[in-house]
């Protein structure tokens, strides 16, 4: 055989390919691989800053169970607690604990674990970020298979927190034996999957829990790779290296799901895009606020910028939330916007001017959305100057009450209760709000402790109507979460936005 330079190069390339070529993915998927969009900084779902990070709750829920199970439509269902409630005068709460559940190390789950977990996060020194919630209960005790606690301050949403941030049950004996550091190194829960291996910033390998009390997960092993770059996630699923990924650009989503071997699911989740208004500068003028709201064509933004993936909103409540009121509508009416502005002496020649702050790339098309809205405003007589900042700066300014007259943000409310959306976002004394006015605070104040559930929900609906009538905020849309996956698996989405491995099955 004559060896030419060309044939030598060809042989070299072929040998490289043979050396490193990955085996073709088998037809049946044994080890499910998910390209996840965020890293997991800590395994403790109850204390520290990670515990309140909504983007990693799906990872926690694969390993740990919450007190109360939250179903994919956000509704509660019996979980580790099979029943719960208040006594007649709302001075005590009671919780019945599921029997026959085992921790991942094989030990028995007991009512004492529930008591200890609740008591632990009610103490400041544990670093519990939700101490102000769990601290409303005290004197936790076990009576048979029931946990009872005294109510220090009545909170009608306390049981909703049991399937929200930090609402996880941890193993008392194991945690006390290994300590916080040992738990980080080898976490155990009662959830559908057990942690087999974890490499920070790289991956976590999960193994099905053979003793899981609920339906057994379909895949025996699941590898979750932390692939934070969107283009790399697209490549991961396109090359077949990963079977499922999420949070890909909408244009890529349409392209990928049209490809042979890939499929896609998309469903609205509990995250919304909104613009905070503050009572300052031009936004103190009711006509300017109302004009700013009426001038925005939300459906056009969804169609043009988000490839049709989104649900226009008129309040901070999405259709899945408890206090959603479909009768509240704020129409897109640029003529009305012009009239309102004219009443205050503004026009396209003499526009109302203010600054709008936004992130860029923090959420899909955030900056582009604001550019489009500023363009719509310009046509009716509002000239807004865009200021781009990082989300960390947004949090800082919002907590200090120093946001610009308008500021884009996305609000997540996976529990679906109005207190954790409209409540915290619009109640003036809350560090998360931007608007602060007596009329609204007086309406919201009594609802924090309203014991009558129907009255409470109706109260929040009235608040939403009042906010819409006075244009105290500009709700834009509810996000739709695209999930791209192999056509050999079926993905059931959770309205909270959490991608749960145990809800993925073979197609």
């Amino acid at each position, binding site marked *: 055989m004559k060896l030419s330079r060309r044939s030598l190069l060809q042989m070299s390339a072929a040998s*490289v*390919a043979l*050396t*490193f070529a*990955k085996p073709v993915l088998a037809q049946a998927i044994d080890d499910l691989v998910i390209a996840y969009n965020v890293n997991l*900084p*800590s395994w*403790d779902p109850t204390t*520290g*800053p*990670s515990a*309140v990070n909504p983007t990693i709750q799906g990872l926690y829920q694969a390993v740990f169970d919450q007190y109360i199970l939250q179903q994919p439509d956000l509704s509660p269902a019996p979980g580790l607690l099979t029943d719960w409630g208040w006594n007649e005068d709302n001075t005590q709460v009671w919780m019945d604990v599921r029997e026959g559940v085992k921790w991942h190390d094989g030990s028995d789950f007991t009512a004492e674990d529930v008591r200890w977990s609740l008591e632990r996060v009610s103490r*400041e020194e544990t*670093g519990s*970020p*939700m*101490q*102000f*919630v769990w601290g409303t209960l005290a004197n936790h005790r076990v009576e048979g298979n029931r946990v009872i606690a005294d109510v220090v301050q009545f909170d009608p949403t306390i049981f909703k927190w049991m399937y929200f*941030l*930090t609402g996880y049950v941890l193993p008392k004996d194991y945690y006390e034996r290994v300590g*916080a*550091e040992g738990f*980080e190194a080898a976490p155990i829960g009662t959830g559908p999957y057990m942690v087999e*291996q974890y*490499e*920070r*910033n*790289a*991956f976590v*390998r999960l193994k099905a829990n053979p003793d899981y009390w609920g339906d057994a997960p379909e895949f025996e092993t699941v*590898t979750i*790779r*932390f*692939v*934070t*770059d969107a*283009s*790399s996630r697209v*490549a*991961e699923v*396109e*090359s*077949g*290296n990963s079977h499922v990924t999420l949070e890909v650009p909408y244009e890529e989503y349409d392209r990928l799901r049209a490809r042979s071997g890939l499929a896609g699911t998309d469903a609205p989740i509990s995250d919304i895009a909104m613009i905070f208004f503050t009572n300052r500068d031009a936004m103190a003028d009711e006509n300017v606020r109302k004009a700013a709201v009426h001038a925005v064509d939300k459906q056009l933004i969804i169609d043009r910028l988000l490839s049709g993936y989104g649900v226009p909103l008129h309040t901070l409540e999405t259709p899945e939330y408890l206090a959603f009121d479909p009768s509240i509508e704020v129409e897109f009416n640029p003529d009305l916007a012009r009239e309102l502005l004219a009443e205050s002496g503004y026009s396209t020649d003499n526009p109302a001017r203010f600054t709008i702050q936004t992130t860029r790339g923090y959420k899909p098309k955030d900056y582009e959305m604001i550019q489009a809205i500023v363009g719509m405003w310009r046509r009716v007589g509002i000239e807004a100057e865009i200021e781009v*900042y*990082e*989300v*960390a*700066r947004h*949090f*800082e300014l919002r*907590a200090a009450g120093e946001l610009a007259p308008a500021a884009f943000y996305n609000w997540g409310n996976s529990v679906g209760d109005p*207190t*954790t959306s409209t409540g*915290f976002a619009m109640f003036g*004394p*809350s*560090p*998360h709000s931007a608007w602060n006015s007596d009329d609204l605070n007086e309406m919201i104040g009594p609802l924090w402790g309203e014991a009558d559930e129907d009255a409470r929900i109706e109260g929040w609906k009235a608040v939403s109507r009042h906010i819409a009538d006075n244009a105290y905020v500009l709700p834009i849309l509810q996000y739709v979460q695209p999930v791209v996956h192999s056509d050999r698996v079926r993905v059931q989405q959770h309205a909270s936005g959490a991608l749960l491995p145990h809800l993925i099955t073979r197609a």
Partner: protein
Amino acid sequence: MILRRLLSRLATTLVTLLGVSVIVFVTIRVVPGNPIAMMLPPGATEADIDRLRALYGFDRSIMEQYFIWLWGVVQGDFGTSIQSRQPVLRLVLNRLPATLELSIMALVIAVVIGGFLALTGTRLRGTRTEGAIDVTSGMALSVPDFLWGLVLILLFGVLWPVFHISGRISPQLTSEFTTNFFLFESVVRLRFDLWRDLVSHMFMPALALAIPLAAIISQLLKQSLKETMHLDYVTLSRTKGYGENHVIIREALPNAVLPTLTLVGVQFTFLIGGTVIIERLFSYEGLGNMAIDAVINRDLPLIQGIVILFAVLFTVVNLFVDMLYAVLNPRLRHA
């Protein structure tokens, strides 16, 4: 002479690191983005904010915080990460080997490609091949490394899926190692199955980092060779009847390589800095990837730890190159 030079550089290094620590510490505290505001749960009150500030020590003055931190560093305690609540030193030391291995692999690839192109261009000077090499080097240099990363992902990750797109090693193989220097350990233990898996993960990020550096090496070395090839002693070699390959490699290269060596040292520090974006793109679990997460989450102790470690790396590499140059250059060696 070299020892005195070494001691002098060590003293300078200490002052540099102290200066870096002050700049980093103050800067990340005065730039917008409060870590406490980032971690506020819904419903938090002013009292909760104060409690969190006190918990993480942000209720003290910056100067007070700095001296507490510096005293800790002197004792080997770089603080605790806000996000993961793990000791910073342990976190960064766990990730350092991954970044070092990636950087060294990129350097080796860059030297091999750059050296090969320079020698080929010199050997075939005046031909179309030299022109093609010049054009290729120009292109390689004008495209940033992260863009090369995307091109490589498309080519060798999607269209012709030969290499892995993300990670450092296949998850099921990580338990095979006893140190964090996976590549080094796989060679020492003759575990070529592990080596193959590691290289198939590292090759694309390393190549993306290496391409711009290879272009620089190629251009500089070729220029040095070109100048050297006109010197009298090279002409003498030719007159003696040595072949062109011998003249280039044995006679011209040893002298031409010195300026390239200095440049490679300087560029290597930039290459380590470049790992931040590349590691992110390839989800490679090194220091760079960790640094981005730390910045996003305003994990101040971790940012400080990573920057200080990067600063140490930079100064050590510079020191090493400086010493190597002194050893290789007879004029400095005998000065």
